[in-house]
């Protein structure tokens, strides 16, 4: 039995964002109230799955544990991923199954849902090299 580490941000296979019904801007984490395009401000925000593949914009391998409430163990990598259609850069941890030492800017990665940290019941989205 697993539970999402945060509600309403992702499904089994994709990030959940919102898209403005008026101007088309995307938002992640999902913006539920008003569009943040200052020329718009519409309240018509529709939930939408974001592209589940993207390109590495940048990344870092952390060699020390982050403080609580982080539950993982170093080394772990954080990746910034550029989604082409949405024109947005989204962060995520690198999947435990991917080798950070082989990672390069521009590499294609795809979304995967994995345990938050080893042995955790909570799951979160991560990026995996393809």
């Amino acid at each position, binding site marked *: 039995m697993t539970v999402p580490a945060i509600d309403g941000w992702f499904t089994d296979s994709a990030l959940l964002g919102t898209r403005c019904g008026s101007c088309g801007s995307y938002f992640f984490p999902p913006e539920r109230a008003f569009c943040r395009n200052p020329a718009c401000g519409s309240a018509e925000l529709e939930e939408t799955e974001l592209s589940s593949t993207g390109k590495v914009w940048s990344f870092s391998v952390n060699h020390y544990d982050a403080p609580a*409430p982080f539950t993982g163990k170093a080394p772990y990598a954080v990746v910034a991923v550029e989604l082409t259609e949405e024109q947005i850069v*989204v962060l995520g941890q690198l999947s435990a199954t991917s080798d950070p030492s082989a990672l390069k800017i521009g590499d294609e990665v795809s979304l995967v849902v994995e345990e938050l940290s080893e042995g955790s019941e909570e799951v979160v989205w991560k990026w995996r090299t393809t």
Partner: protein
Amino acid sequence: MANDVAVLGVGMHPWGKWGKPFVEYGVAAARSALDDAGISWRDVEFIAGGETIRNGYAGYVAGATFAQALGWTGVPVATTYAACAAGATAIDIARTRILAGLCDVALVVGADTTPKGFLAPTWGDNPSDPDWRRFRLLGATNPTYFALYARRRMELCGATEEDFARVKVKNSKHGLNNPNARYKKEYTVDEVLTSPMVSDPLRLLQICATSDGGAAVVLASMEYAKRHGVADPVRVSAVSTVTPTFPNTVIEMPNFSTDSAATVAQPELGFRDAIAAAAYEQAGLGPEDLSVAEVYDLSSALELDWYENIGLCKAGEAEKLIRDGDTTIGGRIPVNPSGGLACFGEAVPAQAIAQVCELVWQLRGQAEGRQVEGANVGLSINQGLFGHGSSVIVTR
């Protein structure tokens, strides 16, 4: 310029890890700035405090806390929070009140006592706080974000680890003779490159620590300065406190994502460029007028980004500046003669004020052991969480 205010006095409590209440540092800095200005606390007509969020309720109302410690005088007060930009926002409020004619002389104070190690979320176990979420879901510490920029710079501009190390080496040399600096040790490129890797590609000696410290400035109207016998004071000629423009396409701490540029074109200037541009426009000056700059080197790599943001060189050319020694004291445009965050560590609400203190000493020719000869225009710049820009231009 019509919008100038005079800097009558500056003062600091040395940075360190002293473990005392933040109020003590703030009051020490304030008294030092008042002495420097040659006025008494009872002459002050407005006090602005930079808020500290890690020191209980007294820190949330820092302005009043400092006023009480200096002795209640009935002086009007404001306290501002803008993360790393808090001090500049406090300066801006004081300056604006002076320019509006609401007071003639104002005191601005910021001080902090910080815990050891990475800055953790302040709100405790609060899953609705974005700052909590980035630690929980990503383990995205502050250095993680700095590392993302650093690696991007390596990819796009050909920066090397040695370039980042050169920044630290330069700053460590600059800070050697600064009595207010916490770290007074000269490093070599080798020492920097063999320090422990923290957030790859950034090593321990390339990431700024957190420190205790306090800084204060006394601002006054130009008329007040004249009456007070200061004919040619250092002036604050600009304070930029701009926010980003949508869509902000650079990932910013503590966010999970950028804005989407899918339907709205990116603004002409990115956020950090816009912070400097607003300051230059206010002062009626440009990068070519600068004699000295204090930029927020949260990481050694970030200092290189700032060179471009404040127009010292074109995008992608900052590596050349550091390699050629242009930003070293004695070079074309010295940056962080104080030693920067590399030698201070960050005392959040005091840091933007400390940057201004250094520039004032530089413009007065009082920066002993680290003086930029003939400095007459200085710029400070930094950026606080969630989009608080801050830049101050001082002139003489």
